[in-house]
């Protein structure tokens, strides 16, 4: 019989319930602020000290390797080279002798173009595959067959079709970026909660409204996961592709420095490639967080 309560007493209860969450955090904070501060200190220590220890260990191992191996540069030598290199990253002596900044930007540009084209084709195709079962069955086997193929295997086809190195490298990026985007978009569209689709049916929304108001926002986190995977792979592939095609670009630069037997530069390039990849990943993670909607239960 607890449902049989005075309506007057129910109203303030509902109001209080909605106001409570804003009040709650203050109390525990005041009560054990010292304990919490201590916890915070140890958490920051974990965040900063532990990675530093890891890095120090890596440098130590590196140093030990160089002791018995004269061809391998010591950490100190590499650091000095890096300072020299990054003090002037944007110089241009000849097409084959440009600063590391230009090389990184050239690679990033190829990734952006190849990836952008892949998004333009892959996301709409993913929508179709996820929404129309026939299209899904049509492309399913083809995608399963082509997805495991290394994008570099497509490079000769690109060279054949485009007769030029740069578009061929972009073509490889396009191929490697498109699969995660198609698949994740399709999965996202298929996983739109049935509740939302029922809302669309009851409101009798047009296909365009269903697409823009329900499918797209609901599938967006999946699409962004696809984008993140694509960018990650694209950044892996561009280095290899550029080693094969030549020109300006961080991959070619690594290969060029190998031909010059400039090992410190190769190590610097490895770190720089890793750093750029990390930045791309973090940027896309932030983007994904901004567009992930809370799945509200009740």
């Amino acid at each position, binding site marked *: *019989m*607890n*449902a*049989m*309560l*005075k*309506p007057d*007493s*129910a*109203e303030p*209860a*509902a109001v209080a*319930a*909605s106001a409570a969450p804003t009040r709650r955090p203050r109390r525990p904070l005041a009560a054990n602020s010292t304990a919490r501060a201590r916890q915070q200190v140890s958490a920051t220590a974990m965040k900063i000290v532990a990675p530093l220890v890891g890095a120090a260990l890596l440098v130590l191992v590196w140093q030990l390797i160089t002791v018995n191996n004269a061809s391998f540069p010591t950490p100190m030598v590499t650091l000095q080279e890096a300072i020299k290199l990054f003090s002037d990253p944007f110089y241009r002596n000849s097409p084959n002798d440009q600063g590391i900044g230009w090389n990184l930007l050239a690679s990033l540009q190829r990734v952006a173009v190849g990836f952008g084209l892949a998004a333009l084709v892959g996301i709409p195709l993913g929508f179709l595959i996820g929404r129309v079962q026939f299209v899904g069955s049509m492309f399913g086997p083809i995608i399963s067959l082509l997805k495991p193929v290394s994008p570099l295997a497509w490079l000769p086809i690109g060279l054949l079709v485009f007769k030029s190195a740069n578009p061929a490298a972009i073509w490889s990026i396009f191929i490697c970026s498109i699969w995660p985007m198609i698949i994740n978009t399709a999965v996202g569209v298929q996983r739109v909660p049935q*509740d*939302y689709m*029922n*809302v669309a*049916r*009851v*409101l*009798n*929304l*047009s296909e365009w*409204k269903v697409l823009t*108001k*329900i499918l797209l*926002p*609901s599938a967006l986190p999946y699409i962004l996961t696809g984008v993140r995977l694509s960018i990650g792979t694209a950044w892996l592939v561009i280095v290899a592709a550029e080693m094969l095609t030549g020109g300006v670009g961080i991959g070619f630069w690594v290969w060029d420095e190998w031909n010059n037997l400039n090992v410190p530069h190769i190590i610097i390039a490895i770190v720089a490639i890793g750093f750029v990849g990390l930045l791309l990943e973090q940027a896309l993670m932030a983007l994904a967080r901004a567009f992930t*909607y*809370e*799945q*509200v*239960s*009740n």
Partner: protein
Amino acid sequence: MDDPKFIDIEGVEMVFHTKKGTFHALREIDLTVRKGEFITLIGHSGCGKSTLLNLIAGLLKPSDGVLLCANREIAGPSPERSVVFQNHSLLPWLTCYENIHLGVERVFGKTESKAQLRERTMQALALVSLTAAETKRPHEISGGMKQRVGIARALAMEPKVLLMDEPFGALDALTRAHLQDELLKIVAATQSTVVMVTHDVDEAVLLSDRIVMMTNGPAATIGEIVDVKLERPRDRVALAQDARYTEYRSAVLEFLYRKQAHPAKEAA
């Protein structure tokens, strides 16, 4: 009121074909609903009451039999039979205003100006006393408020029938009581025809003109119908002392726990 067969359900059967085989959910459902009537469907879990509601909504198609609304066959979902879903089903990326406006725009967008559409949306928000929550998103408001937005969304389309699938099931008792009272007021003001699924006996007696009690599944059907002849407006506190209220209540309890006693292992 006027049309005694506003919703007309004749000989409806519902069989689901699943991977595990066929499941006969509903058999021989015959029911008519008057215009302006408030009907609740009650029964143990798994008795197919939500299935029946979804059939009226047009979200499901019957395996056999016909469903008519205002003398037209129910061929699919339509804004004229709007649904308040159990879990409110608000779109989390839209504000409360936009959630309601989506339906309003669809129903009245072709005939009315933008200002009129806005006016309708704001009226719907005001009807459930949520004008202040206009720009909030669903995750920023409480469960009871979300359900109120769900009701506002359904009502804003001026449906011929309001279908509610355990709309207050997930709410705490106080909020539920408050929303039941609000619903009574809204229904009285809008003269809506309502079909509501519930598993709460008090809710059924308080709100309904008739309580449709369903037998246990599989192959569930309508067991008994209780005519609740309590005058409106109803006041829950006064009714608690009313002998007729207690009588209706025990009639439903008798049906649910004596005649249709659910096997203990399946009871939810």
